[in-house]
């Protein structure tokens, strides 16, 4: 009895092998994330859409943006950043703080910081205001990979 061999072109075989290798490589270091909270936090603010627009330009997304006065009466912002893609991402961010009149408060706290999010993973970027006068924030994001 002879075994019937399918007549697949070599180029197709190579392409298939490359696709499998690439899929396996993409799985290296990927992270799975789950949340137990299913409702927005009390401190969530409606800036999520705007922050999300910013993050989507570098293929990331904002799950939630929280802003609150901490126990010392100083504003703090936290942004949950998710990477739902298949690539490890690095980005830099800079929070500036503005007072109630909309003026930027210059400070040594506002510096560029770089962070990474593995595929499927998430991170929290946060910043603390330099003083009690801060009422709102401005966020800048740029790719670093």
């Amino acid at each position, binding site marked *: 009895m002879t075994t019937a061999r399918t007549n697949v072109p070599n180029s197709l075989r190579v392409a298939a092998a490359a696709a499998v290798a690439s899929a396996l490589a993409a799985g290296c270091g990927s992270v799975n994330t789950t949340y137990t909270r299913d409702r927005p936090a009390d401190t969530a603010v409606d800036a999520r859409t705007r922050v999300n627009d910013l993050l989507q330009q570098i293929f990331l997304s904002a799950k939630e943006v929280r802003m609150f006065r*901490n*126990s*010392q009466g*100083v504003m*703090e912002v936290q942004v949950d950043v998710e990477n739902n893609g298949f690539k490890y991402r690095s980005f*830099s961010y800079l929070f500036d703080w503005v007072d109630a009149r909309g003026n930027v408060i210059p*400070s*040594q*706290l*506002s*510096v*560029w*910081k*770089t962070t990474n999010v593995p595929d499927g993973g998430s991170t929290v970027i946060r*910043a*603390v*205001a*330099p*003083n009690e006068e801060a009422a709102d924030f401005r966020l800048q994001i*740029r*790719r*670093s990979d």
Partner: protein
Amino acid sequence: MHHALRTARSAVRTLAPAALLALAAPACERARYIETGSPEGIISVGEVDMQDILRASSGMLESLIETGVLKTAKNKPAELVIDQVVNDTSSRFSVDELTYRMREQLVNSGQAAVVTTYGQTPEDKTAQDLLRRQAFLKGERASQMPDPDFSLSGKITQVKRSAGDTKQVSYTFRLTLTNIRTGLESWTKTVSMTKVGNKPAVGF
């Protein structure tokens, strides 16, 4: 016809090496200004970069502000003495790059005052001498001299590892605020950063 062909061949022979040289030469980058601490700056694996120092000072300040430790001082604003911050890394840089940024933020915003006339090796010897002279002439006691609340000290350390050509360095900046009246640690913070690679690179 033959003459034109010969001229074309000769031109190719002359230009080809020049073109190859141009391709082989490293890309020329003109000097330009960038924002200090920007991700566009050079990232070195075996050195503490400006981005690292700025990130550390920002992290320290955030922690100082969010814990409110300076508000617990007897003096208003809190009076600080800057003690030794030791650079225990193989990277050569001045720790003043870190402490002066922190001082600028705390002093100029009125959250703390740095005492520069304290101790045996004061930062400002002239001011200390004048202060002592004035106190002596007025007949005041040592209690009239600055009475700081906290002393700031710290250390910057590194952990280096490598695998083949790839190097990895973790730098840890740690600062401690000691309550001078009790001798106890009132606040401490570490800020770490890890870099991996085999050669310096220009960020973007």
